[in-house]
């Protein structure tokens, strides 16, 4: 059973929007997490410093959240083998599809990019189907 939290979720979303808009207006960059992290795995380039600092900010923000409200970072109910498979899929998939929830779901749709709309609908559907199979057909998960 999960609490429905429209207000805090909307507030959090607004903050994400402000963060992404700041990066666009000031630096002219897309706040796509998978793109930024993926870029850090490639050979160092002129983009490496700002990408590293963005990820540093992300991790620092995580610490702030953890210290202020530890419960905000929830536990995972999934076993290790499944976590590894999920991680590999997320890593490979976001690079192949050029984006994730942030790059396609927020920045791309916010710019009315047809590619991002297709990508977002696709990964949302794939996510929903996976959860459905896992929870309702196989009866696993939480």
């Amino acid at each position, binding site marked *: 059973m999960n609490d429905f939290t429209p207000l805090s979720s909307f507030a959090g979303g607004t903050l*994400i929007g402000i963060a992404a808009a700041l990066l666009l207006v000031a630096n002219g960059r897309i706040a796509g997490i998978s793109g930024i992290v993926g870029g850090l795995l490639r050979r160092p380039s*002129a983009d490496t*410093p700002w990408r590293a600092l963005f990820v540093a900010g992300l991790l620092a923000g995580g610490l702030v959240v953890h210290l202020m409200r530890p419960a905000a970072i929830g536990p*995972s109910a999934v076993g290790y083998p499944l*976590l590894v498979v999920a991680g590999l899929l997320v890593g490979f*998939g976001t690079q192949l599809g050029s984006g994730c929830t942030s790059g396609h779901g927020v920045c791309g749709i916010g710019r009315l990019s047809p590619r991002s709309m297709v990508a977002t609908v696709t990964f949302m559907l794939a996510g929903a189907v996976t959860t459905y199979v896992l929870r309702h057909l196989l009866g696993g998960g939480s």
Partner: protein
Amino acid sequence: MRGLVAFVSGLLFALGLGIGGMTQPSKVLAFLDVAGDWDPSLAFVMGGALLVYFLVGRVPLARPRPLFDEAFHVPTRRDIDTRLVLGSVLFGAGWGLAGYCPGPALVSLASGRATVVVFVAAMLAGMWLFQRWNARALPSARLRPVTAASLVALSVLAAAQSGGGAQAGVVREQMLVDAGWLTSRLDRPGLVVLHVGKSREAYDRAHVPGARYAALGVAPDDVVVAYCRTGVQASYTYFVLAYLGYDVRLCDG
């Protein structure tokens, strides 16, 4: 300044994910589980983010450049290809399995839980595997045809320009110079070497000694040698300058 902006943006992004509930895998899975005890909260995260970004995202249409950079670095592709759809299917499946997408997973590292560390390690490995696979798939598939196409286009245009004096498909020798030719003549007056690139940054990092950035101050009888990394942009410059009547060459190498 750009670095500070990137850091602050990352920080705010993390706070937004934390406040919005994206760092609780159970909440993410409850959002994706439409057929179960559906929790639509995360649609409000996306709604809030989109509302702000949609309003501010119009800015690049109105302004020529961002505050702290020379140009906007925004994707321009509009085609829907297999990679986009297949990649999104794989990502969505992984998201539905564990309830983590890249941003919230990184933010959740702060909790120090072994589960999220394992997930992030696997995610980075997945990204790395893609790049390994992609690096092997790409060079022959993308780069060479581009170079080949620009050379064929060059020769066709050259043939047209000289009134059929050169055969299409054969690059005229006087169009190209090689690195040795260039090195031996670098200090000669009347020779202008042009760095043809999209960003000043690349020029600042490395350029041929004495090379100028963009077409500035070329005298009518100077010999101009244009170069860039792949030869594509330098080719455009070649034709603009040749059209304007300059003695221009491309550096081959």
